[in-house]
């Protein structure tokens, strides 16, 4: 019976259990509060119903009671707030060394590019038991990448990257929805998340014609002429990009900025706005000259230019370390 009429969607990520645990806690707390209010209202309404000759007894109020029913809910609210914040922090902090997948949204489809070079539309294949980080942008309006079985959702904005991550725990096919209204076919902007066993996934990935994203990015980097200024030594007219990703960069106006995906993207499209200290404003904008897919390739390429030339896999900025074990921790929530 419960299977036919479930109260929550399938739990298929490490986060799902954490969210549901808080949900159940809230159901119990709010259920108790609602029951308390309803019982009192019904009991008072019945017990003190109008009877001829019996008059209401006037009560001014009670400061002690007011304080009691302010302070107790306040503590309960604060507990919910803290618990909700803890879950949210985890949800919003992608572990270092996550597998990175680029997502480009447009009316009304999801385009997905894997670091290994696989491209898909309205589908995302991922292995079970690995941290996957989605780096997302939109070509037109705001969309939202929502996977109920993973309990994650993040709006996808034009003109910048937003990020979400998950760690799938159960092979299967799950719903992917666009959750931010985006026009006529909003409800058609749906797809599937295919979670595969690692071996299956490797087989799926290896059937790849075009090579890793960073390799395509290197090609684009040369084709657009980026490499004439951004040289791998200190002689170029533009900054050396080796190992720049994730580092602090000193800007011309005195500020510093972390060179994350959004900053790299901004430098390509609007190079003048946050220029690196010591360089002339000579770089032209590439707005309109490169597609979002090409920007993703370029970003993936620049990220692959680690100090140690480690290839497509890179480390993200320091994030809270997730333990490596793939087993979900049940309903336990810290």
């Amino acid at each position, binding site marked *: 019976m419960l299977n036919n009429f479930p109260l929550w969607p399938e739990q298929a990520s490490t986060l799902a259990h954490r969210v549901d645990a808080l949900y159940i806690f809230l159901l119990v707390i709010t259920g108790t509060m609602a029951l308390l209010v309803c019982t009192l209202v019904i009991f008072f309404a019945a017990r003190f119903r109008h009877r001829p000759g019996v008059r*209401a007894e006037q009560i001014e*109020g009670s400061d002690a*009671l007011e304080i009691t029913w302010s302070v107790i809910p306040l503590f309960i609210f604060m507990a*919910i707030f803290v618990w*909700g914040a803890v879950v*949210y922090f985890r949800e919003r902090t992608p572990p270092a060394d996550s597998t990175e997948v680029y997502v480009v949204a447009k009316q009304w489809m999801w385009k997905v590019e894997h670091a290994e070079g696989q491209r898909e539309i309205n589908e995302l294949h991922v292995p079970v038991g690995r941290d996957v980080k989605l780096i997302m942008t939109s070509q037109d309006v705001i969309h939202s990448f929502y996977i109920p079985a993973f309990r994650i959702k993040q709006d996808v904005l034009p003109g910048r990257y937003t990020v979400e991550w998950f760690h799938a725990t159960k092979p299967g096919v799950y719903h992917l929805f666009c959750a*931010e209204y985006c026009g*006529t076919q909003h409800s058609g902007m749906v797809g599937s998340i295919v979670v595969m066993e690692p071996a299956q996934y490797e087989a799926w990935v290896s059937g790849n014609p075009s090579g890793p994203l960073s390799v395509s990015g290197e090609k684009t980097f040369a084709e657009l002429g980026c490499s004439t200024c951004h040289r791998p030594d200190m002689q170029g007219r533009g900054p050396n990009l080796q190992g720049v990703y994730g580092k602090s960069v000193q800007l011309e106006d005195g500020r510093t900025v972390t060179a994350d995906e959004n900053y790299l993207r901004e430098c390509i499209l609007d190079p003048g706005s946050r220029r690196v200290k010591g360089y002339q404003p000579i770089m032209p904008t590439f707005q309109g000259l490169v597609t979002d897919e090409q920007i993703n390739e370029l970003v993936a390429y620049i990220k692959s230019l680690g100090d140690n030339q480690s290839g497509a896999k890179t480390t993200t900025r320091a994030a809270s370390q997730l333990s490596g074990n793939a087993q979900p921790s049940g309903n336990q929530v810290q």
Partner: protein
Amino acid sequence: MSMEIAIPQPVERENYLNKEYGALSWLLTTDHKRIALLYLVSITFFFFIGGFFALLIRLELLTPAGDLVQADTYNKLFTMHGMVMVFFFLIPSIPAVLGNFLVPMMIGAKDLAFPRINLLSWYLYIIGGALMLHCMLTGGVDTGWTFYTPFSTNFTNTKIVEAGIAIFIAGFSSILTGLNFVVTIHRMRAPGMTWSRLPLFIWAHYATSIIQLLGTPVIAITIVLVAAERALHLGIFDPKLGGDPLLFQHLFWFYSHPAVYIMILPSMGVVTEIIACFSRKRIFGYSFVAFSSIAIAVFGFLVWAHHMFVAGISVYSALVFSFLSYSVALPSAIKVFNWTATLYKGSIRYDAPMLYAFGFLGLFTIGGLTGLFLAALGIDVHVTDTYFVVAHFHYIMVGGAVMGYLGGMHFWWPKISGRLYPEGWARLAALIVFIGFNLTFFPQFILGYMGMPRRYYDYSHMPEFQVLHVLSTAGSTVLGVGYLLPMVYFLWSMRYGKPASDNPWNAAGLEWKTASPPPTFNFDEEPVVTWEAYNYEELDAPPHKQEVTVG
């Protein structure tokens, strides 16, 4: 019950209804009571238009496939449903009808401070409403009532600017009403009507007026910016033009979150009056209930970004807005506890207004408590933009605000019309509304947690959601009947209802100390207030025992 003992009044007595006749005597009136009735007719018209859209939405969702209307039509339906209900029904509902009628009477004044501005605000509402009607008839808008950019500014070719102007104009009507109430409550209270003797209905309207005055200009300027980007391609919100789409969301919710309190605060005021009257008691913790209204108005301005937890704001600002959202939950909780405590040792009658107040208590409590889920960051990520949110805000804005509005309409109908409505039908309607409402919206909480996104025209990819959608659609038809009934019997009672006495409920409050319907200037002579609010003890005291109880 009190209806049976009502003493019929001679109908000839001059009052605000029979003083003048003819269309001009209504269209040029400056009498706050007549303006209230003008509003009543206009918002009822828009309520049924918005309700009709809602019914079409629910019918479309009966089956997973999109089969009743086109996708674009569906998108326009939920957009126009939202815009009509929010800007042309809910926001003016209680303040412009009941507030307009009652605020001067409750404080012992002849009229509002600026009677002509009051009439002007109705005309602004009508101009805005006419423009909105024209916009709907000539194509409508498909952005959702939230107008999110850059979709609204550069990606839709529907009538954004026209709808924007309609809301802009109606907004000024709301600002002027708020201004009128603030000045009236400050300056025009009768001798002896101190702030601590004000009915809590007045406190609630005072808090509401502050929000209308301070919040509405922000939505006005936001609309101007949207129009500027759309018409002149100024880069404000669209990143392609150098703008920031999140800026729009901040501006929009800076008004539209407090706007929820414009809808719910007056309803809380109504329910407070009803509970006091039908349990024959003074309100438990008067000052706590009064100041919680002010607290809601103030804190309500500080929580807007809780609509944006997944929109791309920083983790730290999300943290602050989650925290502040719990601070605005507290005054609402305090009100619920005080209403409940008021019932204790009362002498409770179950007349129709009280049934609506009970319904309000139940539905508002559920609406408020589910707000705790949405304010919890980790859960909001999963349920925001799903049916969970849809259910939550309907529990507040329909379960809360509309229940209060209907309760108030029943409570003050004898005063407004001078007639009694049929009590049996009214109780039945209250029951139907309560059942229909829960049947419509409770399944949507489950739908939302299951992952059903809102604003979906077609859910054939997830047919497992159909059972809950069918329940919801079934409920909406019941709800529709519940809303039609009062309109029918109110109209009926205007001609056939028994004449009402001045004070059929034996209620406290100055508005009951004058005739039903009241004379044009409300009181034959200026009242002098020597008693506290909710003096039900004195009202219920048998005359010969009064000396004893005072001691």
